[in-house]
């Protein structure tokens, strides 16, 4: 049974970007919830809105051109989208932390690792610099960086990509957050280093009991890490289910197609299933199912009526009207 009150509840989030060439609805009506201690995977291809969803929660959308058009995101009683800047500061970097894809651009190249690591502590906790440095050393040891005392005095460029991502994780977790948002943290890394970082996130999650939202395009990473997965396409969630259920029996045609196009799951040499065409242009209104133009099961009704995410079983929801009707 799910706990009564989730840690984070996002309802009907809408974020768009107003550009000269039109209004791009990057996130178009996304609702989900994250429980304490749980790992939620958000999967999608580039432009599906998975990063914009999380940037909206963190208040990292540049406005303008971005604009949060509507919805709410309630974290432990506080709506992240409508709260005062002071409230947001009290949560961000303290109870909600985020790590990014590229650890080189998200660390400040001009500051020593030590200064960057203790910054969240100095801001959020009444703590002396000396005590903060002590905590920083412990945080680095906890992410597997030995000789922390010396390494803290180095600059980011003196670290390898994997080490920088470890520093990022140490920095994000130094305030013991309740929710960690990880935006493709291993995409820029080699596979052997990716394995190290995923293991590290698992281990730190167990120790701290935090919830994790893990954004990725790699279904393999999701399979090993997440309790639940939601699949995004064209700014909407098209399917949401526990990981095992999603991989064992994907319902939505997009999820099925995605699974069939991965070489690892197919017989060697067999032609891969490929989804013809391209994702839709988000600057034009999409009245029906956004996947309909590329879907092999689409009928004319698919492009007319809006596709709504509905539960098929208590914890498995998808947005395909034809699957709900039992037609495919």
């Amino acid at each position: 049974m799910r706990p009564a009150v989730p840690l984070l509840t996002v309802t009907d989030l809408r974020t768009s970007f107003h550009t000269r060439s039109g209004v791009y609805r990057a996130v178009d009506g996304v609702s989900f919830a994250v429980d304490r201690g749980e790992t939620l995977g958000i999967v999608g291809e580039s432009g599906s809105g998975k990063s914009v969803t999380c940037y909206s929660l963190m208040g990292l959308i540049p406005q303008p051109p971005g604009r949060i058009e509507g919805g709410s995101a309630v974290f432990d009683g506080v709506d992240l989208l409508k709260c005062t800047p002071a409230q947001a500061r009290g949560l961000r970097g303290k109870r909600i932390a985020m790590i990014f894809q590229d650890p080189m651009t998200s660390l400040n190249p001009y500051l020593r690792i030590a200064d960057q690591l203790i910054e969240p502590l100095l801001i959020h906790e009444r703590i002396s610099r000396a005590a903060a440095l002590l905590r920083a050393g412990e945080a680095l040891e906890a992410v597997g960086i030995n000789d922390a005392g010396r390494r803290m005095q180095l600059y980011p460029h003196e670290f390898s990509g994997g080490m920088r991502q470890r520093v990022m994780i140490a920095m994000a977790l130094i305030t013991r957050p309740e929710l960690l948002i990880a935006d493709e943290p291993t995409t820029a890394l080699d596979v052997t280093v990716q394995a190290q970082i995923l293991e590290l996130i698992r281990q730190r999650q167990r120790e701290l009991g935090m919830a994790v939202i893990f954004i990725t395009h790699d279904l393999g990473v999701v399979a090993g890490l997440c309790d639940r997965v939601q699949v995004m396409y064209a700014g909407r969630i098209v399917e949401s289910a526990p990981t095992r259920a999603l991989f064992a029996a994907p319902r939505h045609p997009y999820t099925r197609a995605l699974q069939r196009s991965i070489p690892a799951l197919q017989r060697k040499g067999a032609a891969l299933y490929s989804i013809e065409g391209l994702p839709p242009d988000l600057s034009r209104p999409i009245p029906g199912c956004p996947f309909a133009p590329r879907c092999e099961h689409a009928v004319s009704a698919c492009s007319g009526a809006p596709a709504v995410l509905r539960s098929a079983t208590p914890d498995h929801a998808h947005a395909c009207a034809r699957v709900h009707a039992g037609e495919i």
Partner: protein
Amino acid sequence: MPEPLLELRDVKTHFPVRHGLVFQREVGTVRAVDGVSLTVAAGEVVGLVGESGCGKSTLARTIMQLIPPTAGTVLLGGRNLTTGTAADLRGARRQLQMVFQDPYASLNPRLTVFDTLAEPMRVHRICPAGEIPSRVAALMERVGLAPRFVRKYPHEFSGGQRQRIAIARALALEPRIIIADEPVSALDVSIQAQILNLLAGLCRDMNLALVFIAHDLSVVKHISDRVAVMYLGRIVELGPAVDVIERPAHPYTRALVSAIPVPDPERECGRQRIVLAGDPPSPLNPPLGCSFHPRCAHATDACRAAVPALWPAGPGREAACARLGEI
């Protein structure tokens, strides 16, 4: 065994590292490719895998003679590409073409699709000028692009379509072998499948050989007949793709295979992972002996002393590990 189409013999590509602005002195050498021998038969797909910095892209550029090798020979159809004039090399390039990773950077933004595809035909004078438009149209159809897009510029296409243009450009001269350097790494999964199908179809239909470079083992396993695993400038394991990836012999290949997340929760949660410690060492200052020994769980003193050679490890297979039979 028929004569190989492409043969590399002990190819080395080293880059000097210089210090100082005016009076430059050499302070070291990056051994990006350090003694690679490999053959590719006509119509064969050879996958080349390894992590960033292992030298796989440098090897591709060395095969193409975009970077001259420091030592060793590259033979194409028995002809040595490392010696000879620029004109000889241009002749050889008709048979040897390349597709790059980033289709945003590898196409000239000022050329239309027509100009991009017609240029190699004009340079090599492979047909009368009047035939070029029909050849361009046929090429576009071959790679799955509608010929009506012929006057469009690269920025009007998506990433997958651009990669199709890059493949068409490589095919324009009807080569016998294509070197593809991470051709699908920049693409989304659904588009990646389209490009993989296209490449596999071309190899089958045109008896085209392909050197397919990637860091994604499952992609390489899918498309390749044989696979070569590189670590720090050397091939550490070589053999039929399915055998190498399903039953890896070299400890590095084992770790690499085990590090790749499998998109299947049942298998992913149950399996044993080998998580390597540390990062790959720098090719500027490689460890003595086997270059993998600092990260290897099975390393002994012998591994630290001498560089292991590629050694037979089963039918059609070779691996460079001193403890091959024991572990």
